[in-house]
């Protein structure tokens, strides 16, 4: 077990904005007392919401698989449910802001339309026009292993909204999450649309806005590596071109 945390008061600075009553966003100072059972940032936020029910944020599984509670925590994107409370230094407020670069609907809730639009733009589904066998298609364990590190994405948008290239061109650059998904299908030996997928990305914006800044890798709460996947797509494009 983790070392029990004593009762501790946490101070927060939280980005607040309700278009129904606020002309523009402001930072709210609020604090909450947490007990040893409150281990994660999300636990504290649930307590905050009990105190001020107008504080709005998304959350669901509270174990890091649904990807709902992504936000900007002390300047860095992450999931509230996987962020340890005990790791926050004493004496400094915890600063919570919405994910960068996406329109804010309210408080910590951002409009993710643009993010999902980019995901959908890579045709995120298996394409295979062969006659289907009665049983499962066969795939060797080695071929299946190619998908590891790709299919586990939870679409929390931590990576994409940490990417400067997405900030400047959210309508044109697919972003790390979308490109990881694109490579998930390119890498799948069962998929037959590799060429179309590469065509779809061979554009100065869609893929090549990636300048291997690697902010995405730094923030991914699942430890995935979009840069690596993007690098492999680039390599395939080069192979195809020369």
């Amino acid at each position, binding site marked *: 077990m983790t070392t029990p945390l004593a009762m501790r008061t946490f101070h927060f600075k939280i*980005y607040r*904005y309700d*278009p129904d009553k606020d002309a*523009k*966003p402001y930072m709210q100072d609020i604090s909450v007392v947490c007990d040893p059972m409150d281990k994660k940032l999300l636990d504290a936020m649930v307590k905050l919401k009990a105190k001020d029910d107008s504080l709005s944020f998304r959350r669901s599984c509270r174990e890091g698989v649904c990807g709902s509670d992504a936000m*900007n925590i*002390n*300047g*860095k994107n992450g999931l509230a449910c996987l962020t340890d409370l005990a790791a926050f230094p004493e004496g400094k407020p915890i*600063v919570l*802001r*919405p*994910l*960068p*670069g*996406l*329109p*804010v*609907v309210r408080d910590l809730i951002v*409009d993710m339309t643009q993010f999902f639009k980019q995901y959908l733009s890579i045709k995120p589904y298996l394409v295979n026009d062969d006659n289907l066998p009665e049983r499962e298609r066969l795939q060797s364990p080695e071929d299946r292993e190619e998908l590891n590190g790709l299919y586990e994405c939870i679409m929390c948008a931590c990576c994409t909204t*940490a990417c*400067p290239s997405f*900030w400047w061109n959210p309508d044109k650059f697919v972003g790390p999450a979308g490109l990881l998904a694109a490579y998930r299908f390119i890498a799948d030996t069962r998929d037959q649309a590799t060429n179309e997928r590469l065509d779809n990305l061979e554009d100065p914006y869609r893929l090549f806005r990636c*300048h*291997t*800044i*690697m*902010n995405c*890798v*730094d923030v991914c709460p699942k*430890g995935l*590596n979009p*840069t*690596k996947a993007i*690098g*492999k797509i*680039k*390599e395939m494009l080069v192979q195809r071109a020369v």
Partner: protein
Amino acid sequence: MSALNEQKKQRPKFLDLTVIRLPLAGYASILHRVSGAGLFLMLPLLIWLLDLSLSSTPEHLALFESITRNVLVKLVLLGLIWAFLHHFCMGLRILLIDVHVGVEKQQARSSAMAVMVVSLSLTLAFGLKLFGVY
């Protein structure tokens, strides 16, 4: 619906670069762009200096000497030396990542640190030379 669209258009965005915390590699990348842009902007100066340095006209050479002795010009040149070194080192890092070397998170952090350390210490070395310390 149009009221909703209006509201949607007016939605604020949080994109305050002074409070978003980037990893070191993020700053190194920004500097890669900044240094590249700086070198581009200073290209005329560099070409002009090259022109003067290769000129056979004595006045040109004298001009070259006097310009490069100017402290302000030296400072500009020092900036360009840093810009070149950073762009060079960071470029190598990008090339390596492009061929899938050092693409893991920890490696990327270390290599960004290496780029900063190498380019700054080389800048220091060249700078000391430039200002005639040795």
